[in-house]
């Protein structure tokens, strides 16, 4: 054990979160995901608290993205993918047949690894979700677009370029545009699948700052490869390894005094 190394990973002054007294927004109970015969997520059980930032870390192929994409059922796109166990959101199992997937996805927004704005104008990108929900009024749309872009800390940069193609923005701007697009639908939960892995350090910092600003208003679940990032921005961290949830707890504690040997090995860089 090398305390000096762990000390460098320690997050700056961020209040310790105790897991008691938090309301669970999403709860997994013995939840498994299969790709045909392969069990990618193995019977995980944990609660994602409301209004906080929860990071999921782990080496490649550990099932962290699969778990994240189960929450808004994006895994449905993959043929042969099915789930077992319970993933409870708003008192209902996300995978029960009665669930309206479209309604679910409107409440659980998602930001992807690579910025993926539509090849449309900046305005149309943000207005896409509200339009889907039936907002036709130009003035209301404009106000939603502005509010979402302000929340995503992009408004100042693009307010004069709303009618330009979104693909002309820089990578970091595109990713913040994607966040604005997700926020425009007014979701409760924001899922982020390695949102900074395709960005340069400057843009990464901006996105991380943005996550800090959104904390409290939204429940944020972020999958990241970057342990420093998890330490910097999250309140709680879950460590996945080979589909199993190895350890879950307040970020501060997990990074300073991990309970499991595997966790310690991973965060000190002995494997992964």
């Amino acid at each position, binding site marked *: 054990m090398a305390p000096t190394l762990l000390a460098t990973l320690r997050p700056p002054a961020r209040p310790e979160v105790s897991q008691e007294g938090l309301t669970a927004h999403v709860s997994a109970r013995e939840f498994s995901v299969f790709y045909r015969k392969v069990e990618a997520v193995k019977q995980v059980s944990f609660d994602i608290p409301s209004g906080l930032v929860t990071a999921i870390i782990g080496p490649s192929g550990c099932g962290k993205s699969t778990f994240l994409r189960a929450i808004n059922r994006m895994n449905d796109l993959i043929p042969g993918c099915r789930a077992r166990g319970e993933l409870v959101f708003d008192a209902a199992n996300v995978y029960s047949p009665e669930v309206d997937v479209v309604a679910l*996805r409107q409440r659980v927004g998602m930001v992807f690894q690579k910025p993926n704005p*539509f090849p449309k104008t900046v305005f149309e990108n943000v207005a896409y979700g509200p339009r889907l929900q039936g907002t036709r009024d130009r003035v209301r749309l404009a106000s939603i677009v502005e509010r979402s872009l302000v929340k995503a800390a992009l408004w100042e940069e693009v307010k004069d370029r709303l009618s330009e193609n979104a693909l002309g923005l820089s990578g970091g701007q595109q990713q913040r545009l994607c966040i604005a697009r997700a926020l425009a639908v007014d979701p409760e939960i924001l899922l982020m699948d390695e949102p900074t892995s395709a960005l340069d350090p400057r843009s990464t910092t901006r996105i991380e700052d943005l996550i800090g600003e959104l904390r409290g208003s939204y429940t944020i679940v972020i999958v990241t490869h970057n342990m420093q990032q998890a330490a910097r921005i999250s309140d709680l961290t879950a460590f996945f390894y080979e589909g199993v949830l190895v350890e879950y707890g307040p970020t501060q504690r997990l990074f300073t005094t991990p309970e499991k040997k595997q966790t310690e090995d991973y965060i000190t860089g002995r494997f992964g």
Partner: protein
Amino acid sequence: MKLATRRVLDRSFSGLGFFSIGIMAASLVVMLAPMFVRGLDAFVFKATVEHRRLMLERLGRGNRDATSGEVTRAASARQPVYDMITRFKTEINDYSADQRRIYRGAVRDLESLVRELLGPFPGEAQPVLIRQQFGQTRWDRAQAKIREILYVESYDYSDPTKMGVRIETPRVEAFRGTSLEALFPYIEAHAEEMLRPRTTVYWRFLFDGSMDAHFFGGIWPEVLGTFYLTFGAMIFAVPMGIIAAIYLVEYARDTWLIQLLRTCISSLAGVPSIVFGLFGLAFFINTLHVSESKSVLAGSITLAVLVLPTVIRASEEAIRAVPLTYREAALSLGAGKWHTIVSVILPAALPGILTSIVISMGRAAGETAPIIFTAAVSVGKPLKLWETASQPTPALPWNIYNLATEHEAVDEIRHIQFGMVLTLVVLVLLLNVTAIVLRARVSKKLRG
């Protein structure tokens, strides 16, 4: 491998590539250059006074005073020809019966050739066919006729091991020693005065109807028919093709049935087009009775079936090429499958789909075999839009074939045939250029 060897290999490969591209370009030039040169001959040529008279009398075009002045001057140059023939015909009455018989036959041949060159003799009853009411309208054709007048063409078959040898004997020999001997040098010397050739741009060739089975006039019925058939085919093929492509990419599961269907579509693209023509006749006309007989409608549907595999395959590729992340983004925002397709996938696939449509248009415009049995006739009026459901039409590809093989006077109307070839080639080239431009435009818009 040694550096020198690699260099030699690289050089020889790029050399080979350059060579084959050069061959391609050269064959394109060799193919297109004569088409353009000969095709342009239908639009720009030396027209005789007969052409101007035709335009004035039949279509009311041109300067009436100038043309009638020209006609008078041409008539006075022609008068000696008529005079000589009339005088000779009275002269032969004094000849012996045998001679009279020979000369009568010879002068009758001569008279009909002169009629073909200059039109009916003055004072003769107006013939029924337009081609007999006017002389040669084109100077190149007129010169060929003059040669026919000056020389009698015959073939020598005496050596059975060889093909017949053509012998041209001056026609004047037949009239040696008579007063008509002077006629031939006169025609040779005064041809230009009699016909008054002048370089003319006949751009209306495209928009004039044909007169007397393409002896005169333009090719508007064919051009219009080709447009009807092409756009008609697109009306059927494009929606069906795109919907089928969407189904195959977005909805169909990967079962053996779908695999079989894909294979069928690919093989359909390789079926000879004449088979589609017969299928169209047997199915659309004889079985479904979409029209009583050949019609633009039946031809359009047949062409649509012909280009459908191309549209499906190309649209499928275009839709498949849309990045998965667009789909994910739309779905994660709560879009349904159909809405994702309409609002995100189709717009992103548009350049590819458009290209496939325009290329299919080029194909449909140029196909001959499918319309032989279903839509094409050799002579016809330009159709009104509502007539296309029941009426057949002339069309460029079929009429090129028809004029080259089945027309009663193939040699007289070569220029029309080449004019059609040029029009069709330019049409298809334009469609392809449109495809390229459209693709570049839309891609640029998508890329931002």
